[in-house]
């Protein structure tokens, strides 16, 4: 089990390190209802609430490509205005995401 956690940790660290260099895909985890953004940073790191691999939830980022995901469900609302922000499931700070 601790190996699985180590894998998750590495995906999370490496994903965070590389994330800024990837564009925002048309269909992305950040636009999905099942995305749970981690609240430590506004860097778009998070995990999926429904996809579980080896008993652990999958690490994803707001710009992870979701074009192949069968569980993708587009979120109704996205907020990008940070002035009234409290950690909020609809908050997405990623530059390329539009408010809706």
């Amino acid at each position: 089990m601790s190996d699985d956690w180590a894998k998750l940790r590495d995906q999370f660290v490496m994903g965070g390190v590389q994330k800024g260099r990837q564009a925002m895909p048309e269909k992305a985890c950040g636009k999905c209802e099942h995305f749970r953004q981690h609240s430590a940073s506004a860097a778009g790191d998070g995990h999926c609430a429904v996809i579980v691999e080896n008993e652990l939830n999958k690490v994803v980022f707001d710009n992870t490509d979701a074009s192949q995901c069968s569980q993708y469900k587009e979120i109704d609302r996205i907020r990008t205005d940070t002035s009234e922000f409290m950690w909020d499931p609809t908050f997405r700070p990623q530059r390329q995401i539009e408010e809706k």
Partner: protein
Amino acid sequence: MGGPKMSAVEMRSIEEIEKSGQWWWWAEQKRSKRLDYLRKAVWKKGAKGSGYQPGVKVDLERPILYTQAFQANEHDPLIIRHAKALAHVWDNITIFIQDHAQIMGYLGSRPHTIVWHPEILFLLNEDLYNDRTVIPEPEERSLRIIREICDYWNPQTAGTKMFSKLPPEEIVKLMTGAIGWGLPIHRIGYCTKQWDYMFRLGFEGIIAEIDAKMAEAEERIYRRVPEPEDYEYYKKLDIWKAMKITLEAAVRWARRYSRLARIIAENFETDPQRKQELERIAETCWKVPARPPEHLWESLQFDHFVQILTRYEACDGAWPARPDYWHGPFYDKDVNQDKVLTKEEALDLTGEFLIRCYEVGWFWLMLARDTLQGITGTWVWTLGGVNEDGTDACNDMTDCLLEAARLVRVANPTFAFRYHPQVRMQTLRNVFECIRQGLGYPSMRNDPILIANAMHWHRHPLKEARRWVHQACMSPCPDTKWGCQPFRMANATIIAAKAMEYALFDGFDQVLQMQFGPHTGDASKFESFEELYQAWYTQIKWMMDTLTKVTGAGRYNSSELDPRPFLSAIYERCVDLGVDSAHPSERGNSWITFFAWMETGDSLAAVKKLVFDERKYTMAQLIEALRNNWEGYEEMRMDFVRAPKWGNDDDYVDQIHVRCHNDVAAHSWEIKDPTGNPWPPLPENIAAYVTNATKVWALPNGRRLGDTLYDGGCSPGAGLDKKGPTAVLRSVAKIDHIGAVRATLLNQRLNPTQLAGEKGFQIWHSYIKTWADLGIDHVQFNMVDNETLKAAQKEPEKYPELIVRIAGYSAHFIDLNKKTQDTIIARNVQSLGS
């Protein structure tokens, strides 16, 4: 000195303004022209919500310079690379002198900038890249530079290296933000400073000590065949070298201000008085921090330089200080004895000293931006208290600081006052005046209790325990050679209410939809209160273990992965031993912050009463209602809301709280930090009671997902204390404030009308005496009425310096987002004497 135009409000008389309670207009009229200018020229660096204020931009000079030097010295040992990078910044960053300023030293190359430390954490870097508010113009160019810096640092930030080393399960869980807050990184911490060392030697004196140490080391390892234990000196030599590089560069940086002041004085300044000031600034910055200070203007300058220097090195998220204790002797000499400084001049300097602190800011991770909204860190300064021999430590500098605070009305720093029975009355009146004028500070700390507490938990000897300062907003730490904890990583902070959620859902996180805590059984089948209690105790112990495991590992690995040469250089212990500041060789001062703590006892009491005593509901019904976030169960929810609540002197619920406190305190002794000390609990909340509202699922105290949590560490829930302030104190006094907590935070709102005049002081004073006699360690007050707060929500421009106490810190009301503002308004206003 041309100040801003008089506003219409200023035309009212001082008496009229006093009567209206609009103390910010009073302050504007009372303060000197210089202070007025400096106060209005300052930039607000705290975030509102999680975005920075308009106009505030990230400074790119520091990251560019730091990166250049770090790249250029890649063959050096890590600690020396960091030292050289810092030195390169201090030698080259743009410096400036603001009109009318007397205290030098800015964090950043422009007054409106916040500093970015790209070497700390890859997520911070990506967070900045995503930010929509702080990227300087031209944006495209800035983004390109930021991307290049991110590319260089992300694979090797302190966090990247540290996360790969720490227990994998724990670090992933921490970073979700569901169970804890803060990061196990040396460059993000709360650093208590050891002023007796720095003021005694100055940096040149410390360098001389380092030189002697290096000479001795070289003697042992170069000039003879070393003994086995001597090989350690190879490592120590690098550390001493790095310390020395930073100390020398710090002196050069200060002297750049000296030169600039002299250039302006000799070539540009036409006002003879300002010219004289600039010459004095030039002399002061030449002298300190190189040599020990001898005057108040030198000691304040020394202090401020050190604070800025440490923040160039890293994000020091707190500002532990005891300015009346350390600057008091200089004040006394200059103002009372030698009369080289008038009281007014000392007040001006002190006011500016506060403003200079207020303007310090950096680009901060979201977790800190929104939980510390309105400010940039918990700059809580300690005043009052006792001397090492137990006599009253209040002095004229204490009064000067309190007076200056009323004039400049900054939200950071705030003060916490160490109250004891022998405290001098004139100072206590001054404290009260700050509270009455709505500053929200000083908070009151019960000195005898906290001294006993420091001795109980960390074995500090009495004399050293009496030297305590606030290491962050609440926890006392001696500022002595062996008592001084050089930094504290904030991530030993648990969101305690989650343990209740996990106990009810077998360790499953309802918000994240993930198994987090240990399996403690299906709560719908629990047949006794004791079963539920034990499930909760298992979960909270697991949370304490998880977070302290990460913090301990973070501290242990920091010397190697993330050393801090400058911070190390200003601790006598580190210089003596040749160790990095992360080396756990001090006496120790760890604690676990408990956010969202008091929901636990209230939830347990409600379940005990309605499920197990009265049997009105079953556990299965409760779990179903909670699973649905109480939706469709409103009548049932109201029963749980009406169940006995903390803060009403009701033993039914209070004794459950006391049991929870005692049990977590007992577990504190079972887990040890790297210095071998226990991890005592410290319940308090900053603004996390609002930000965590969407992270903690529905609870049996009647709370729904999204409802704000209780605001204090031992405060009753907003509006749930129905029996007046004495009942609140009686409930809170049932907690053992020495043996059950490291400290705990009590918020109270008082009625400003009731506390007017001399009578008001007497009423408050007798409340404070009762509070102290009951052995409660902390209380803080808001004394602004709801009419004013609501008016400020409507017309914020008319209430620029209206301050409120959040929890552990203060902020300007208009800098808070609406949800937090509403929580302040919702707190009960108490009438004392009821």
